[in-house]
């Protein structure tokens, strides 16, 4: 860690800086901000997918027919710190079955199917009343056990992130409220309606990682948000929490871009904000932390924006994880005429879902229904004309046109050198490409291919080591056997010599005797 950079990062938010590229997009956020957040009523059935984050599926902790209380753990992830999945309501597990999962693959995944008993009763809750006197390690444990993940979209387990951060030493916690993707307004509504919970969560997170101060980054267009958060900070009486307004440019809410705006420092390739002594968390994650610690409630619900021209009454809903998306659409007045595409996530980074029977997952920040008019008519892809627009808007300062070339031709070493791993898949290059090349699709494919290639290389390496170990073992065995045979021969040879000597002595003795005689 470079100390002078860390020290420079301590001034995060004092002066605003720029990041490379980006786009100013139409926000389309207002349509979903007209009414307060509504809670979704109990569903007839919940489908809690066992796969919610990167890595392997969670292992189910419940059996078919078992009764569970709201908040009981129903699954445990074998990787990444071993987080948990919890029951969204009380009821009976009717099956652990395959069901279409909300995942870009469109594949089915194992889901815990829960039939609510209608009582919505919590299991025993264990809140930490005196969180200010609690050991930070215990706070981190609580965060992990509550199954909290980054709710900004990456769904990386917060317990792991916070654990690593506390080891590295963090001076500033950055709460990311810069929700820059068009249409999505779940964080904005959260900051308007629950500012106290956010500030409370920020203070808990600050203690859990040992940070000195917190910077809450919001967009300059969120007027009401600034007022509500400022009020909440005053009410809490906490020192060292500031609000910084950043200019709305997509993708400013990206972790690396936000850090660059706040500090003027670039996070090196392959690095993380922790390299600069910073930790970024989404505002919704902070509320989940507050609930987990002060109320003992695990992460079983989140605010989802249901919006788009294909929805009759766009709004934000507080939905349980596992609720079928169709329920949310119904609550928003159903589909408007001309609804053509169901997208999970925003228009830039989201992916299309095949059906609205898919469940809400922890990563689901937005359900966007586009109409036929919204969807750009699929224009034929044209050859790249090297205009360089993509490179101009790339926030990661990559060369998308070169990457496109090398991925198409399978030049993987070159692709790696061009920094494909740094692509955040924001879609800016796609958006501006005059030839309508689906660049991000290619980059996602390229990342997948590189991953496979690396796995194969690793496998080849272990196979080579095992082969060489076996060869040397066989060689040693051969050598040993040879030595043994040689030894035996020598021993045999010795025996022969002895015999001969004895025989010779006898001979001599006989000869001597004969001579005497």
């Amino acid at each position, binding site marked *: 860690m470079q100390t002078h950079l860390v020290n420079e990062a301590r001034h995060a938010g004092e002066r605003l800086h720029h990041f490379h590229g980006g786009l100013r997009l139409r926000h389309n956020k207002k349509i979903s901000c007209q009414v307060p957040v509504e809670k979704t009523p109990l569903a007839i059935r919940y489908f809690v997918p066992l796969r919610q984050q990167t890595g392997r599926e969670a292992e189910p902790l419940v059996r078919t027919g078992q009764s569970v209380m709201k908040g009981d753990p129903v699954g445990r992830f074998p990787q990444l710190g071993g987080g948990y999945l919890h029951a969204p309501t009380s009821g009976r597990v009717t099956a652990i079955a395959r069901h279409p999962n909300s995942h870009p693959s469109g594949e089915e995944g194992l889901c815990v199917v829960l039939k609510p008993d209608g009582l919505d009763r919590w299991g025993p809750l264990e809140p930490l009343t005196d969180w200010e006197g609690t050991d930070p390690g215990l706070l981190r444990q609580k965060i992990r056990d509550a199954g909290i993940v980054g709710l900004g979209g990456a769904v990386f387990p917060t317990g792991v992130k916070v654990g690593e951060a506390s080891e590295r030493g963090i001076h500033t916690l950055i709460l990311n409220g810069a929700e820059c993707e068009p249409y999505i307004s779940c964080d904005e509504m959260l900051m308007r309606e629950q500012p106290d919970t956010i500030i409370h969560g920020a203070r808990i997170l600050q203690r859990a990682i040992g940070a000195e101060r917190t910077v809450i980054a919001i967009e300059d267009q969120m007027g009401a948000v600034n007022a509500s958060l400022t009020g909440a900070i005053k009410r809490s009486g906490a020192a060292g929490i500031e609000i910084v307004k950043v200019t709305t440019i997509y993708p400013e809410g990206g972790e690396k871009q936000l850090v660059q705006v706040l500090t003027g420092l670039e996070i090196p390739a392959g690095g993380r904000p922790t390299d600069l002594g910073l930790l970024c968390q989404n505002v919704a994650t902070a509320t989940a932390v507050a609930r987990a610690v002060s109320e003992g409630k695990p992460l079983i619900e989140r605010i989802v924006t249901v919006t788009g021209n294909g929805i009759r009454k766009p709004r934000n809903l507080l939905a349980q994880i596992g609720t079928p998306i169709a329920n949310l659409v119904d609550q928003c007045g159903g589909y408007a005429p001309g609804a053509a595409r169901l997208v999970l996530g925003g228009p830039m980074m989201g992916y299309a879902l095949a059906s609205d029977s898919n469940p809400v997952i922890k990563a689901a920040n937005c359900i966007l229904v586009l109409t036929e008019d919204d969807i750009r008519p699929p224009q034929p892809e044209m050859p790249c004309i090297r205009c360089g627009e993509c490179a101009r808007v790339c926030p990661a300062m990559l060369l998308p046109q070169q990457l496109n070339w090398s991925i198409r031709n399978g030049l993987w070493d070159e692709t790696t050198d061009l920094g494909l791993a740094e692509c955040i898949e924001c879609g800016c290059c796609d958006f501006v490409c005059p030839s309508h090349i689906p660049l991000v699709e290619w980059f996602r494919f390229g990342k997948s291919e590189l991953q496979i290639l690396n796995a194969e290389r690793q496998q080849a390496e272990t196979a080579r080591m095992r082969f060489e*170990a076996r060869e040397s073992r066989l060689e040693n065995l051969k050598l040993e056997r040879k030595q043994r045979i040689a030894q035996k021969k020598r021993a045999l040879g010795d025996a022969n010599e002895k015999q001969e000597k004895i025989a010779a002595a006898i001979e001599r003795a006989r000869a001597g005797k004969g001579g005497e005689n």
Partner: protein
Amino acid sequence: MLTAIITITLLGVLFGLGLGWASGKFRVEADPVTEQINDILPQTQCGQCNYPGCRPYAEAIARGEAGINQCPPGGESGIRALADLLGVEAVPLNPENGEQKPKAVAVIDEAICIGCTLCIQACPVDAILGATRQMHTVIESECTGCDLCLPPCPVDCIEMVEKPRAPEEWTWPRPPGQKSPAGIPAVPEGSQ
């Protein structure tokens, strides 16, 4: 005149000694080309190239005895990488050595296995576990899918099974779209 000759001679001797010392001091034990070739080979150790393992094949290529198109598991991409490294023309896979197959792992039908250890002796990467008259089993993560355990099995209880894909191994598909002409240096796609 004389000074010049003496100076040049002295310098010659001096550099000669220096080079001689350096060649001893910085001697490279293995042939670096062999290493590089071996790194490209898939390490399946299947012997389809007619050499007893990937390293012997790499050595043979380095000596110029073997062609670069004898490795079916490496496939076309392996041949291309070898051609790039050695500066030769890429050639199609030699059909005499077999054809590229999807990755598979050996699975022992444990009910039929008689515990003869023949497959254990045949496995080039020690991926089969077992003992005499005990059940044998394949360590799936170590199996390279080389097929070498199939012929020695007296009861034919080993089967090659294509590796099932775990849900977390899902990858983004290749978008529909033209591949740019390969082998041509990066020139603007539209300018041809």
